[in-house]
C-alpha cells in the first residue's frame, strides 16, 4: 500500500505531527504470543480467591446462570456490533433492546425503559437529575438507606451540576431501625422555600430492609416532588413493583439478572419511568415501527433528547451504554422464565432465613427487626477482625459495614450478610460453625496475639 501512496516510509504519513511534539517510542514490554499471554492471565486470575463460601452481596449479587446465556453472548454478531446506526442491518440488536425495554417495564411496572446506563449508581444519578429537569426544581432528597456508592455518585453528579442533594437519615433504633426516617423526610419536604424535585428511596435498602415505599411516594407527591425507587430486579419477582406504589422513576442495578460480579463491571444501569416523563429520560430508546413495505421493524427513536443531536442541551452526555449487558439480562430472564425468577427470589429468601436462624442459634443476631428478603445485618463485636479471620477459614462473611459506611454509627461492628440460591445449606452450617469459633478465639486475648 505504501508504494501506491508513493511513499518510501510510513513515517511520511506522520509528517503532520510537528517534530517538537513527536514522542519517543513506547517503553512497554515486547509483544506476547497468545499461549504466553494466556499463561500470564491465568496466573493473575488464580491470584484472586473465588472459592470462598461467600455471603457478600451489598449491591452485587451472585446468581445461577444457565450456560445458554453466555453461549449466546459469545456470538460475534452480538458483541462485535456497534450502536445500531444502520437499522436495516441491526435488527437483531434493535429488537433485543426493544425486548429488554419491555421485560424491564414488566418487572418494574413502568412504561418507558432506557436502553441501559452505566450501572446502578449512574442510573440513580440520572434519575435524580431527571426529577430536576422535569420539575424545574433543584433540590433532591435521598435516603441514607440507599447504597453508599450510589449516594457518593449522586454527590459527585449534583456537585458538578450545581444542584442540591440532601440525605435523609435512617432511624437509629426501635422497630423502624434502619429504615428511612419518614418523620424527618416529611419535615424536609415541608420546607416550602426549597421545593423538592425528587425523593430517592431504595427497595430493598442497602441494609436489606423492606422500606415503606408507598408512604415515601405519598409524601413525595404531596410535596410536588417526583418519587424515584431504587430497586433490585430479582426481588421484583416477589416484591411490589415501583409501578404499584406510584414511583415516577425506577432506577437500579441490573447485574443481579445473571451478570457475573467481575469485580464491579460491566454492569447494567436501569432507568424506567412513566409515559409522562418520556421526553426527560436520558439514554437511547428503541421503538417498534415498520419498513416501507410494512414489515415490523425496530429503530432508535426520540433521539432529540440525545447528545449527538442536542449537544449542550441534551438530557445527558451518555453515548456508549451497556447494551450487551441488557441483552445478557434479557437472555437470563428468558432462560429462567417468570417461575424460575420467582424460585430464585424465594430460594434466596429461604436460605437467608436459614442463615439468620443458624447465626441466632450461636448468639449472632440481627441489628434490625424489619422485614427483609435475602440480606440483613448482624451485630458482631470486632466485626473487621472477625471478618478477616474468617477469610482464612474459607468464608467471606459478607461486608464489614463500617468499611463502606463509616459515617453510620448505628451500624458500627456489624456485618451485612446475603444469601442467594447459589449458597448451599452446607455453607450456612459451616459459616455458623466457623464464626462461632472465631468469635470465641478473638474473645481470648492471648489467641489474638498468636
Amino acid at each position, binding site marked *: *500500500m505504501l508504494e501506491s*501512496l508513493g511513499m518510501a516510509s510510513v513515517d511520511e504519513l506522520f509528517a503532520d*505531527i510537528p517534530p517538537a511534539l513527536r*514522542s519517543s517510542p*513506547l*517503553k512497554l514490554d515486547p*509483544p506476547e504470543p497468545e499461549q504466553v499471554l*494466556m499463561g500470564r*492471565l*491465568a496466573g*493473575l486470575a488464580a491470584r484472586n480467591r473465588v472459592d470462598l463460601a*461467600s455471603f457478600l452481596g451489598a*449491591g452485587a449479587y*451472585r446468581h*445461577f446462570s444457565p450456560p*445458554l446465556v*453466555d453461549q*449466546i453472548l459469545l456470538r460475534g*454478531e*452480538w458483541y*462485535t*456490533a456497534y450502536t*445500531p446506526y444502520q437499522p*436495516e*442491518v441491526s*435488527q437483531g440488536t434493535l429488537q433485543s433492546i426493544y425486548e429488554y425495554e419491555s421485560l424491564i417495564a414488566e418487572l418494574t411496572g413502568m412504561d418507558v425503559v432506557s436502553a441501559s446506563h452505566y*450501572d*446502578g*449508581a449512574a442510573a440513580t444519578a440520572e434519575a435524580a437529575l431527571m426529577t430536576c429537569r422535569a420539575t424545574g426544581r433543584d433540590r433532591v432528597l435521598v435516603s441514607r438507606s440507599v447504597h453508599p456508592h450510589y449516594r457518593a*455518585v449522586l454527590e*459527585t453528579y449534583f456537585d458538578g*451540576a450545581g444542584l442540591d442533594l440532601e440525605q435523609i437519615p435512617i432511624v437509629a433504633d426501635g422497630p423502624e431501625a434502619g429504615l428511612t426516617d419518614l418523620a424527618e423526610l416529611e419535615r424536609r419536604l415541608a420546607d416550602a422555600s426549597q421545593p423538592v424535585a425528587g425523593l430517592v428511596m431504595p427497595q430493598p435498602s442497602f441494609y436489606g430492609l423492606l422500606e415503606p415505599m*408507598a408512604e415515601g411516594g405519598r409524601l413525595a407527591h404531596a410535596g410536588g416532588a417526583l418519587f424515584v425507587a431504587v430497586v433490585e430486579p430479582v426481588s421484583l*419477582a*416477589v416484591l*411490589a413493583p415501583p409501578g404499584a406504589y406510584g414511583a415516577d422513576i425506577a432506577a437500579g442495578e441490573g447485574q443481579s439478572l445473571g451478570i457475573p*460480579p*467481575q469485580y464491579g*463491571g460491566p454492569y447494567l444501569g436501569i432507568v424506567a419511568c412513566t409515559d409522562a416523563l418520556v421526553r426527560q429520560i436520558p439514554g437511547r430508546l428503541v*421503538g417498534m*415501527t*415498520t419498513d416501507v413495505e410494512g*414489515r415490523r*421493524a425496530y429503530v432508535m427513536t426520540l433521539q432529540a433528547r440525545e447528545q449527538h*443531536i442536542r449537544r*449542550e442541551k441534551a438530557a445527558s*452526555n451518555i453515548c*456508549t*451504554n451497556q447494551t*450487551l449487558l441488557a441483552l445478557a439480562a*434479557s437472555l437470563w430472564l428468558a*432462560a429462567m*422464565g417468570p*417461575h424460575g425468577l420467582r424460585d430464585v427470589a424465594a430460594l434466596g*429468601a429461604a436460605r437467608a*432465613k436459614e442463615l439468620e436462624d443458624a447465626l441466632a442459634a450461636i448468639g449472632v443476631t440481627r441489628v434490625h427487626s424489619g422485614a427483609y*428478603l435475602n440480606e440483613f445485618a448482624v451485630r458482631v463485636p470486632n466485626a473487621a477482625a472477625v*471478618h478477616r479471620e474468617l*477469610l482464612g477459614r474459607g468464608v*467471606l462473611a459478607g461486608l464489614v459495614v463500617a468499611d463502606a459506611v463509616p459515617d453510620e454509627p448505628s451500624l458500627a461492628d456489624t456485618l451485612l450478610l446475603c444469601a442467594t440460591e447459589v449458597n448451599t445449606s452446607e455453607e450456612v452450617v459451616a459459616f455458623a460453625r466457623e464464626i462461632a469459633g472465631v468469635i470465641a478465639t478473638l474473645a481470648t486475648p492471648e489467641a489474638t496475639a498468636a
Partner: protein
Amino acid sequence: MSASGPRLQPTIFELSKPGRHSDKVPHPPKDALNRLPAEHRREHAAALPEVNEPDAVRHYVNLSQLNHAVDTGFYPLGSCTMKWNPKVNEWAARLPGFAQLHPMAPDAVAQGTLQLLWELEQILIEISGMQAVTLQPAAGAHGELTGILMIREYHRSRGEDRTDVLVPDSAHGTNPATATMAGLKTITIKAATDGGLDVEGFRAALGPKTAAVMITNPSTLGLFESRIGELLEAVHEVGALAYMDGANLNAILGRFKPGEAGFDVMHINTHKTFSTPHGGGGPGAGPVAVNAKLEPFLPSPRVLREPDATFRLERVGERPASIGRIRSFVGSTGVLVRAYAYLRTHGGSGLAEITDDAVLAANYLKDRLADSGLFDIPFPGVCKHEFIASASTIKKTTGVRTLDIAKRLLDHGFHAPTVYFPLTVDEAMLIEPTETESIETLDAFADALVEIAREATSDPETVKTAPHSAPVKRLDEAGAARNPNLRWRAEAGEWTPCPD
C-alpha cells in the same frame, strides 16, 4: 430460519405459552416467602415470557443473524473504530478468577485483579505521557465528565470561578453535553478553513472565565491538529486547562503522547483503541489520564501498590481532595481485562505497528476514492486513521445523498461509514478502515463506492431505495417518533401454581 426462508422474528413475548419453561433451579420451600409482609408482596406476576430453552435459544440465534458485525464483515464506522475484537480477550474475561470476583471482596482475596488494574494504569500512563490514570469511567463520555469535573475542582481549589469550556465545532456531541453536566458553559469555536483548529478563534475566546478547552486530536476529520502546540500554550497562559478527547488515540500510539505535548487530561475509549467489543452499543470503558496538576482530584477509590508489592484500594475518605465517586465499585473490570490482554499481546512495538497500519489503510482508501474523481475529498492531505469523503457533488448532479450511498453499501455486504458527522462537512462520510483489514477488503470497498457513485447516475432510484438485500427495507423513523411504541404490552400475568 436463517439459511433460507423468512428472517424476521416475532418478539419473545409472542412465543410465550403459560407453563412453558425449562427447569433451571430447584423448587424453593413452599413457605419461603410467607414471612414477607403482605404490603410488600407483588400481587400480579410480571408477564414475562414463558418459553423453553429451544424457543429462547432459537430466538436469539436467529435475531443475531440479522446483525452486521465485525465478526461478519467490514465495518468502517469512522470515529467509532470498529477494531477487530481478539477472541483470546473473551476467554480472558471469562476466567472464573476474574469473572466471579465480587466487587466488595477484601483486597486480600483480589490481588490478581488489583495487580492487573495497577499494571494497566502504568501502561496507559506510558501511552498517554501523563502522570496518573483512573480506570473507573464506564465509557468515553463518562471519562469526559470525570475529567471536566476534575478541572472544575482544580480551579475551585485555587479559588477560581471559571465557567467556560471552549469546543471546536467539529467536536463530538458528548463534549458540549459533558460541559453542561459539569455545570459549565460551552463556547463553540469554528474550525479554520483547512479543517484544523482556528487558534486565533480560540485565542479570542480564551480568558479568565475559561475553565478548559476540549480538543479531539486527531480531530473528528481524521486530521492531526498541527497547531496544537500553539493552542496549548495559549490555553495555559490564561490559566485554563486542556482536555484531550482521546477517541482517536489509536491513530497516534507511540507517535504523540498527549501528556508530553502539554494536555492536562484525556480520556481513552478502550473499545476504540484497545479492542474491547462494543456489544451493539456498549459496554465501554473510559480511563482518564491526568498530569500532576490534576492527580489529587482523581475519583476514588484508586488502586494503590504497597511497598511490599501487594495492592489495595483506597479507603472511604482517604483522599479528601478527590472529586469523589463517579460510579459504584471499582470499574468495568471485565472490559479492562480485555484491554490489558490486547496491550500485552501487542506490547510497545505492536502498538506502534497498529497505528502505522491503521493510518496506512486510511490513506490508501482515501487515495483510491480521490483517484476515482467521483467523491469529494475535502481534506486532501495526509490523514490519520480515518478520513472524510463527501457526496456533495454527487448529490448536486444526481440527487443521491450520502444516506442513500450508505444504504446501498449494505447491499454490497459492507457496513456504512459514519455519516453526517462531523456536522461541519456537507454530506459527510467519515471512513475508518482500521488496521486489520486486508488490502483486498479495502479495494472491494473502494470498488463498491465507485460502483455506487456510477449507479447514482445510471440508476439513481435503485440507490435511493436501498438497501434491497437487508432483512428490512428503509424504516418509518418519523412514525416511530410520532407514535412511540417503546415496549411490548403482554397480558398481565397471574401467579400460576408451582408445578411439582
